[in-house]
């Protein structure tokens, strides 16, 4: 199947609104996923990411909007006619069938010849490295192996796109790292357009080409992991990916006045949206003798490569990461320090 893979398809979602009763789950979703892309829906629980995935698979029905696979609207198609492969969070391996039977299921439903089915099952199990486990029952496999069976079962039918619903959440921390690499490698080999649902930014960052960050039924930003980290569009994305300092204040005459008194000059050309707050990453600031923001160190954590200081400025605690070198002097809790922030590292973002 790796050789005979048909061309990858695009997924377009246009103007989707979905409610369960009075509860609005998805609000005006627009999204384009490119052929062959490894794409993530990232967001906290309840943001609608799994519902959006289930909508693509046909397990949820939107009140308005379209889902296009390769330009074709699939809204009227039931799940069994969509050719959209989905790997479930619980894997959903059928306990009354062997591994091989599980993998053969979709092919049998497509009424393939027994000979073809056997060949494709063997190929799919080979691909995930479980050829030796064909006759086992799912309950006899480890969590990681079960997950690979679930993937094999899905790709055996050569779906148009692959949907992964939190596929790593039932694995222990160590397994996750190796399984996510395997998933990425497999996706690259198959060239399948793939959507990965997760609430874990690290998972999304490490394996996906692009990410849609979701909050409360809306997409807040779409971009590569680097773009989202470096240039978040809004406070939610900035706070959700990595740690960030977020300070209240207001822009007056080319200067941003932080609540508590400090004033940061705004470089020319910087637009400060209404109600914006100052946002910067701990590693982009530095402790210095001068600095517009000043306050006592209230907290110090040794993180290995860096030392993270908590500095109280006005009512908030600002985190600053300083690189650690052996022999260097550390600030003690209680020392008054200044915080220097290069103006190009300062972001002014609204909610």
């Amino acid at each position, binding site marked *: 199947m790796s050789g005979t893979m048909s061309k990858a398809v695009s997924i377009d979602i246009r103007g989707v609104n979905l409610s369960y009763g009075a509860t609005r789950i998805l609000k005006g979703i627009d999204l384009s996923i490119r052929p062959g892309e490894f794409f993530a829906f990232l967001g906290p629980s309840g943001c609608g990411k799994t519902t959006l995935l289930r909508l693509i698979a046909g*397990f949820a029905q939107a009140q308005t909007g379209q889902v296009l696979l390769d330009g074709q609207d699939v809204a009227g198609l039931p799940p*069994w006619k969509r050719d959209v492969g989905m790997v*479930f*969070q619980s894997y*959903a391996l059928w306990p009354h069938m062997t591994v091989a039977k599980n993998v053969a299921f979709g092919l049998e*439903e497509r009424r393939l010849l027994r000979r073809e089915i056997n060949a494709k099952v063997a190929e799919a199990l080979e691909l995930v490295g479980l050829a030796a486990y064909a006759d086992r029952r799912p309950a006899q496999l480890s969590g990681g192996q079960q997950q690979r069976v679930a993937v094999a079962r899905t790709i055996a039918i050569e779906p148009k796109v692959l949907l992964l619903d939190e596929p790593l959440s039932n694995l222990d921390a160590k397994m996750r790292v190796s399984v996510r690499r395997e998933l990425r490698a497999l996706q690259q080999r198959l060239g399948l357009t793939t959507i990965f649902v997760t609430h874990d930014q690290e998972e999304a960052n490490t394996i996906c080409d692009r990410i849609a960050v979701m909050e409360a039924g809306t997409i807040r930003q779409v971009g590569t992991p680097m773009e989202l980290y470096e240039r978040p569009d809004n406070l939610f994305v900035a706070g959700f990916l990595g740690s960030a300092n977020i300070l209240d204040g207001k822009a007056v005459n080319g200067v941003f006045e932080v609540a508590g008194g400090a004033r940061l000059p705004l470089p020319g050309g910087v637009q400060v949206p209404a109600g914006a707050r100052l946002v910067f990453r701990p590693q982009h600031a530095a402790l210095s003798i001068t600095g517009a923001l000043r306050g006592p160190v209230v907290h110090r954590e040794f993180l290995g490569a860096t030392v993270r200081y908590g500095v109280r400025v006005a009512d908030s605690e600002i985190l600053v990461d300083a690189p650690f070198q052996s022999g260097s002097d550390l600030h003690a809790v209680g020392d008054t320090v200044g915080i220097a922030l290069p103006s190009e590292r300062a972001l002014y973002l609204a909610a």
Partner: protein
Amino acid sequence: MSDHAAAHDPSVRFADTSPSRTPRRGGTRVAHSPGQIALALAIALFLIVFLVAPVATVAYVAFTEKGTGAPTLVNFLDFARTDLFVRSFWNSVYVSAMTVVWASVLALPLAYLTTRFEFRGAALVQTLGFLPLIMPPFVGAVAMQLLFGRNGTVNLLLDEWFDFKIGVMEGLNGVIFLQAIHYFPFILINLSAALRNIDRAMEEAAQNLGSHGFRLFRRIALPLAMPGYVAGASLVFVKVFDDVASPLLLNVKEMLAPQAYLRITSIGIDDPMGYVISVVLIAIAVVTMWGSARVLKGKDYATVQRGGGGLARRRLTRGQSALAYAVVLLVLALVLAPHVGLLLLSFATVWSFSPLPDGYTLAHYARVLGDSSTYIKNTLLYAGLAAAIDVAIGGAIAYLVLRTRLPGRQMLDWLAGAALAVPGVVLGIGYLRAFYGVTLPGGVPMATLWIMIVLAIAIRRLPYALRAAYAALQQISVSLEEAAENLGATKSRTVRRVVIPLMTGGLLAGFVTSFATAAVELSAVLMLVQNNSDAPLSYGLYVLMQTPAGRGAGAALGVIAVVIVAICMGLSQLAIDRSQRNRGLDI
């Protein structure tokens, strides 16, 4: 609803009667107090005398030569050489198997419909599912004959309008029809519970891979729900196999359980054939239970989902919806038929060769509430005593098994549960034989005392009460007892002041369920009633239904029985609701 349903459901699943799999938190607790040991011994003695000894007596008689007492298999050879018995045996197998088939035909669509689709009639199905359990099949047998028999309502109308008749009530088919209508809820309840416990992703994954409709049901949902189905089906098989009164009231004598009864009552308690048949009945029950447990071994597919919402119910198209309602209404009509028929019969002056009774009267009620009121009084007394015995013993066994490490405590559980495998008629025969020789001062044989009826009923209902007690005790955290002991209460005072008050709701529900089912117990009673003044309502009903003149009064007794049972079921629901509310407030 489903939780309550489980508590109400008088079926005990063969596969999981033992509670020992639940982790015991009190694992390190010490000591068997003398009180516990005495309690365990007393229960063991009771079970040995009133369950093991009678059954052992039956087996002994079956395997020994009449007169000499030498061990022999000659009685079984006689059984196998007698055409009547062999025919009866196969008839029983056929009727039981076909009942399972037809009960499945009724239950499968209802279970799938209510657990997998958005269907407004779901609550209706749940309720109608319980209706047949209120009334044992023998109660409605004659009424069904009048509705569906050769000259019953349905056939008279069909004959008049379309010039044909249906023979659903003819011979063995009549028994199958009657039993299927009464026992399909056992399959419905168990199967629905199993279907509800399947992770919805199991079926969604199949849909995602291209499966739908009937194939989806056959390949995924049904295999995963198989444990529930087998539990329900095996229960139905055994219940039908053991039923004495329903075939007899439909004038079918050539079945095994009726033969045991007829043999003992017509030839006497010295004839070995009744005992041989009893042993065969027990063997069939044991083999069925063992078989179902074996089939289910390693197939506990309870796959309750990790996270995620409830089951996504699929929507029915307009056509499917109409079909679904048609099916539900048809089943509802069948389920209500015996109830309606019984009610009509109880008010009928004469009802014969006509679609509806010729006229209506209250005379039958006057009769049963007047001179036949001893039946009702006896029933209330017997069922009340039996239920009290069951709750006391069931509660004690549950406590000993779940809260102590007394050696042999599992034995008590096993013994009490084994009562399930003993058909009522066998227990009755056993009591007659074992206790007839035991005479009390004054020369009265023990077997003729009315208290023996109570004890037989109590033994029959014990497994159900035991299950209610387990359920009640399992919901109480051991730490509540440990807290009491920590504050200085002794074991027995802890039981009295903490355990029993907390178990009250569950035990009450168990009492009421035992009472309700004991009130309509017949097969053991049939053997043990020695004179009419000691007879309970079920016996009176059976006797009255034998003659056309008595039918009206019999039906009136049946209606009263149904009302008593229905009230009890309602009360038990109330008790469970209340105890759940109380616990909700406490925590």
